[in-house]
């Protein structure tokens, strides 16, 4: 009897999970279908770009600077053992452009902009703003979800690029200004080793994928949140947890595809 109950509970969870994936997929397709109107009225996307992208800049810049400084310190300590301190610029730049930039920027984006999107839409639902919109014959997916979705997708690569750029500057401050690595080697080796297509483009593709996934999760959780204080807080937590895990899993998959044998 106990075994039957366990199997039944596992089965229910699997069915629920598959069902939820289907609902998310439907939500995603509806968002794409109703995206036309927000591109015709681009000011809706610009408004969201400000609240998701521009408002995330400070946390991205500060985090990028410290991550770059830590990379500079750790990188120097490791490279010194092999007498390759001059390759510090390459190490910092490749770490940031290929991995840290897209991944850490996406994690920060999920916790700042993603959680804000979920809470905002969840509260709009709880205060009947979404019902009011529907009663005014305005499709909430077209008016609320689509502009936020595209703002998230567009802003993510820029935030990742900003993170990497500031991170490289942080590495420069520690490596060149503080420790005294040769400035010429730092920049010239970086310029020679970082490939636009292999490294920068792949970083951009990663950040686009992360931006799509994080924004979709945040918007879906907000739209799906029970219209109560507890419901909204639970949805916000789920956004951060699910997005973070999705970013890390997808990063492995994308890295395996992009850099295998490179």
């Amino acid at each position, binding site marked *: 009897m106990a075994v039957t109950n366990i199997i039944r509970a596992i089965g229910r969870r699997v069915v629920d999970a598959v069902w939820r994936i289907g609902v998310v997929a439907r939500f995603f397709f509806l968002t794409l279908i109703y995206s036309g109107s927000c591109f015709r009225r681009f000011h809706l996307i610009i408004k969201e770009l400000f609240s998701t992208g521009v408002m995330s800049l400070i946390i991205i810049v500060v985090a990028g600077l410290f991550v770059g400084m830590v990379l500079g310190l750790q990188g120097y300590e490791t490279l010194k053992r092999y007498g390759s301190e001059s390759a510090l610029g390459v190490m910092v730049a490749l770490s940031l452009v290929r991995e840290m930039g897209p991944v850490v920027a996406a994690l920060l984006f999920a916790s700042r902009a993603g959680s804000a999107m979920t809470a905002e839409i969840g509260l709009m639902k709880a*205060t009947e703003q979404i*019902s*009011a919109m529907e*009663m005014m*014959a305005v499709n909430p997916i077209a008016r609320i979800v689509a502009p936020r979705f595209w703002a998230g997708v567009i802003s993510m690569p820029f935030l990742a690029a900003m993170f990497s750029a500031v991170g490289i500057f942080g590495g420069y401050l520690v490596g060149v200004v503080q420790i005294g690595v040769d400035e010429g080697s730092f920049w010239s080796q970086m310029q020679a080793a970082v490939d636009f297509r292999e490294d920068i483009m792949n970083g951009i593709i990663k950040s686009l994928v992360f931006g799509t996934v994080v924004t979709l999760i945040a918007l879906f959780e907000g739209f799906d949140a029970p219209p109560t204080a507890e419901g909204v807080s639970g949805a916000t937590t789920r956004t951060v947890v699910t997005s973070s895990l999705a970013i890390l899993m997808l990063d492995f998959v994308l890295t395996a595809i992009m850099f295998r044998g490179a």
Partner: protein
Amino acid sequence: MSLNSLVEIRDLNFTYDKRPVLQGINMTFPKGKLVAIMGLSGCGKTTLLRHIGGALKPTKGYVKMDGQVMHELDQDGLYAMRRKMGMLFQFGALFTDMSVYDNVAFQMREHTDLPEEIIHDLVIMKLHAVGLRGAQHMMPSELSGGMARRVALARTVALDPMLIMYDEPFAGLDPISLTVIGDLIRRLNDALGATSISVTHEIQESRKMVDSVYFMANGVIVAEGTPDELRASDKDFVRQFVHGEMDGPVPFHYPGVDYRQDLNLRA
């Protein structure tokens, strides 16, 4: 469908989670009239309103608005029908990221190609009608409950709807705001030549403003008539509701085990 009625409800049944919420509802809302639907919380009033707005599909029966059966419409048809409706939500449901002005202008911008100068004049006129022209630049968070309800009212009538629905328009209002909202609902209905349906608990204010009342209990209509007829009604439920009596068909005590048993007293 009668030429004189805008909304007709026939044999409407709605079951949620195997629980009957509405059973055999028949209602008629004549054009130009203001009709109240009253009853205890949870008796199905808001569910009924959501059926009229096409947000829910009935288990049986239908709601016909302006000659169209609501649940048979596809999304485009439903949205076309909703453009003829306005709905005031319980606490206003103003868009919190928009100013008072933008809230009222919202539907005009979404559904019309009117130039911004004309939208400006229309918004100012709507806000003037509810006495809040001077609050046009304020955000919803800066408004009192009564002001928010008036802005929501201006937004509800922004496109001069044929049908206006009010979901508990008096909930949580002070006596002055309550009178103001009641007066505005009546005046706007008459000025626009609209038909209004108000779901409410408010006996005194409704008595002054509505043309007729439907009383609901447990998902069925238990009485109907003019406010004066219902005030004089000898039906136990109506009398208890109208006079606010503590005990009656709706008992004061929620059903439970015997009181003495709960106190562990021996007989």
